[in-house]
């Protein structure tokens, strides 16, 4: 349904940011490829600055990819349609518009309903669908809590009758109990409308809960892609491994928090080899020199020299 083919994206640097002799652009996405099957959720996780939001914007067509393609598949002869939900429900809703007008806008813009009556009915249906009441349509965004606002964003996105929905950190600004409500709502709507979702979050637990397949990003590259279950239960890339170990868990009061040493290197001067090598406990010489390509294994891929070497040698010895 959604096909990302070796997408790269870089932004020009301002003069002040340029180092003498250095490149004039900073590479934010480097050769990203993945497919999202119809009706499934692809989760993107990574730490801040890894490029996941840029990727979402490229996928949504808000940024143009420098090289590579973004392909949207249609569904049963219909044109593909895409909508997006943003992180901050405070800045993504125009404060001077009534909720009704916010939700009606995509319908009017694309002439999805013929008459004013049909539009009104549609907006009311959408409001009820996300757990609000038709009376809420007359209110302004400031009259709602963060969770309710995110419901309005969802209703607005659905008003465009999308088959692909891109959610960029939709619950990061919300409290835990409200987050649960919104995640449940998104899952229910996905099942109801057969939505294809690209779900972006820095929260590994949330991505695991939502996604069928997941891509772990590090410094503008994919570290590993695979079925959610496999990636989280048995990660191939040492970064995924370390990231999972760094999550403070409730169940384990044995204080087993394993911090990841060091910090994400600056995207302005990425390391020459594997971007994770400087922090990687398993790094060998080649990791510092050559950037690993994606190695396939079953229905997953990963970019790690060490894990790839294990893959090659294991069958011979076992």
């Amino acid at each position, binding site marked *: 349904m959604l096909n990302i083919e070796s997408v790269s994206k870089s932004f020009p640097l301002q003069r002040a940011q340029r180092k003498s002799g250095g490149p004039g652009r900073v590479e934010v996405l480097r050769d990203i490829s993945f497919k999202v099957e119809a009706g499934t959720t692809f989760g993107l996780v990574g730490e801040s600055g890894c490029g996941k939001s840029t990727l979402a914007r490229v996928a949504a067509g808000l940024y143009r990819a420098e090289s590579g393609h973004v392909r949207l598949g249609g569904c049963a002869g219909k044109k593909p349609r895409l909508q997006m939900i943003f992180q901050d429900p405070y800045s993504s809703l125009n404060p001077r518009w009534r909720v009704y007008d916010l939700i009606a806008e995509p319908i009017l813009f694309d002439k999805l309903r013929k008459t004013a009556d049909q539009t009104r009915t549609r907006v009311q249906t959408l409001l009820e669908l996300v*757990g609000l009441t038709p009376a809420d349509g007359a209110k302004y965004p400031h009259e709602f809590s963060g969770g309710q606002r995110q419901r309005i964003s969802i209703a607005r996105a659905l008003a465009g009758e999308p088959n692909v929905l891109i959610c960029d950190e939709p619950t990061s600004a919300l*409290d*835990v109990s409200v987050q649960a409500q919104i995640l449940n709502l998104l899952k229910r709507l996905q099942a109801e409308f057969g939505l294809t979702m690209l779900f972006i979050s820095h929260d590994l637990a949330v991505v695991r809960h939502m996604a069928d397949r997941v891509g772990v990003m590090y410094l503008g590259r994919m570290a590993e892609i695979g079925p959610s279950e496999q990636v989280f239960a048995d990660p191939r890339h040492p970064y995924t491994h370390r*990231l999972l170990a760094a999550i403070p*868990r409730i169940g384990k009061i044995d204080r087993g928090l394993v911090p990841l040493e060091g910090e994400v290197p600056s995207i302005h001067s990425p390391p020459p080899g594997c971007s994770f090598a400087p922090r990687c406990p398993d790094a060998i010489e080649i990791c510092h020199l050559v950037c690993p390509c994606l190695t396939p294994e079953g229905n997953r891929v990963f970019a790690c020299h060490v894990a790839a070497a294990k893959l090659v040698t294991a069958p011979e010895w076992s």
Partner: protein
Amino acid sequence: MMNDTILTIKNLHVSISVDPPIHALEGIDLTVQRGEILGLIGESGAGKSLIGSAIANLLVSPLQISQGSIELDSQRIDTLTERQMERVRGTRIGMIFQDPMTSLNPVLTVGHQLTETIRTHLKLGRVEGRARAVEWLKRVGLPAPEDMLSRYPHEFSGGMRQRIVIALALCAEPDLVIADEPTTALDVSVQAQILSLLRELHRETGVTVILITHDMGVLAQMADRVAVIYSGHVVELGRTSEIVEHSQHPYTIGLMRSIVDIDTPVATLFQIEGSMPRPSDRPSGCAFHPRCPRMTQRCHNDVPALEGNTLHRTACWHPGQTSGTEGTPKIEAKDAAC
């Protein structure tokens, strides 16, 4: 270490004096033992940060302490003048805030800020102050601390800045540190580093810590005891393991169950319907009753007191661990109005 109380909060009300007054905190009773890490957890607007601000006397008008007392080592600190309080902050109470950029002065070098703090509070000379500053930067894990002194806050990453803030909070050797969401702005890998650092420094210095966070995972890893805050009240208080494994209050139970657990995937998340009321329209009786599956007439009428033993106390008319039927997740979106 037992029964060595460093901080006692009695019947603390923090209010906005309008008519009728709005109580953002309504009768908080807490004691903090010397050397422990006490976690305060709650959702945004619950009042957990206000408790921290009230202790440090950093409440901003129109919020003020309208009732109750705060004692640090048996001395009232809520009635001190700003001048007296300045001496308490720093030497007795250190603060770590969520956003390291706002707690550091952007136009002064890190060395200046650190040396100044150390010299003011510990009454040390220039050379000695500088030596201490270097020592603290080393302790919080900054590479090449001597070179770092002449740098400005913007030259550091978020994690490094938070290390500097921790050094600032601890350098005057306070007895109590209030850490308000110290890792919320950080990435998970950096968060783990900062939490490890805090734990290490806590072990070395024996400083008492009040850790305010919305993340139960952080508390489970860090805190000795946890206080659950809901709408200006402490609704449950006890040993961390007790709260995590045997929570009695329906709010705590719901909160714990609505957390997305990475290790045990579920099809549908548990959700508490509705949202926390604002202090201005807090319902009568138990503030949680409109959202509570155990609600009875009594919950509607009377405010429950925090009762139980020293290990575990709950403010609920119908405490108890969840039974099988009560926890069935509801997904009717029509009922939900978060």
